[in-house]
């Protein structure tokens, strides 16, 4: 599938059709952005864990849930970008 995509792109270059190249470029950008965002979400979860061990409040459980939900959402977005774009 990837090989076919590269072949189509090469053909696009040869035939002067840049729309597929643009689409491919944007797809790569979106996937890279989603991947970096997922790394950021992992850091947020870790940071919430460190912060709530420093300052223990009744709100800590909710914040942990928000962090994990945020991470799951970022993973879902990454998968969505890979599959549907």
């Amino acid at each position, binding site marked *: 599938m990837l090989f076919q995509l590269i072949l189509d792109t090469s053909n696009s270059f040869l035939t002067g059709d840049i729309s597929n190249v643009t689409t491919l470029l944007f797809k790569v950008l979106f996937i890279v952005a989603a991947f970096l965002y997922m790394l950021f979400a992992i850091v*947020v979860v870790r*940071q919430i864990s460190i912060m709530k061990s*420093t*300052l223990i409040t009744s709100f800590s459980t909710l914040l942990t849930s928000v962090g994990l939900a945020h991470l799951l959402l970022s993973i879902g977005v990454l998968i969505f970008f890979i599959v549907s*774009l």
Partner: protein
Amino acid sequence: MSMPDIFNSSDHDQVVEPTVADDTPVESPKEKNKTKRTIEDYSQVMREESSINNPLAAFISKPTNILFDAQTNAEEIILVLRKHPITQIPWVLSAIGVAFLPLLLGMIGFLDFLPPNFQFAGLVLCYMLLVGFIIEKFLQWFFNVYIITDERIIDVDFVSLIYKNISSAKIEKIEDVTATTGGALQSVVNFGTIKIQTAAEKNEFEFEEVPQPAKVSRLLNELILEEERENLEGRVF
């Protein structure tokens, strides 16, 4: 001439029954002074404050559901401070602005050259970045706290996601407390900055943009006086 009797036991027939010994230990004055006083005993400021347990408040007096990791068993948190919520308005307004940005870009056809699924992906990415921004800003506000206990002052700073700085100083090391309220907004809403000079390793603490700075300053002065009284009376805990 005989001297008059001062006391004659035969004239006193009354028999005094011995009482059962009281098991209550008698406190010497020194021991009595060793009893730890509660914050309401020596602080007029805290006598006027009720216990607040709202974890989202910026001025939390006598909290019962907040602890910090370096807290000792005998240590009692008197006050937890954060930056006044009004200082968070700039980023809240920015977030609201960014929330409407895709709508504006859609009206001018910013991503119209892309297929519809890519336009949707762009929208999703924009809102994901917005969510991340809001979470980051909220965490920074929520966890950057200033804690005053009956023994110490603690400054918890999470400068960014990956940098943490926690400083503490004993109350007895505090040398100077200055409360500053500057500008119309700070005067109207009653928040400001408290600068604390100490003889500890970190010689200046700054409680930035906290609510009711004058009250906090008075509380710190009361704590300093109580520490001095404890030292004079030999009440070491």
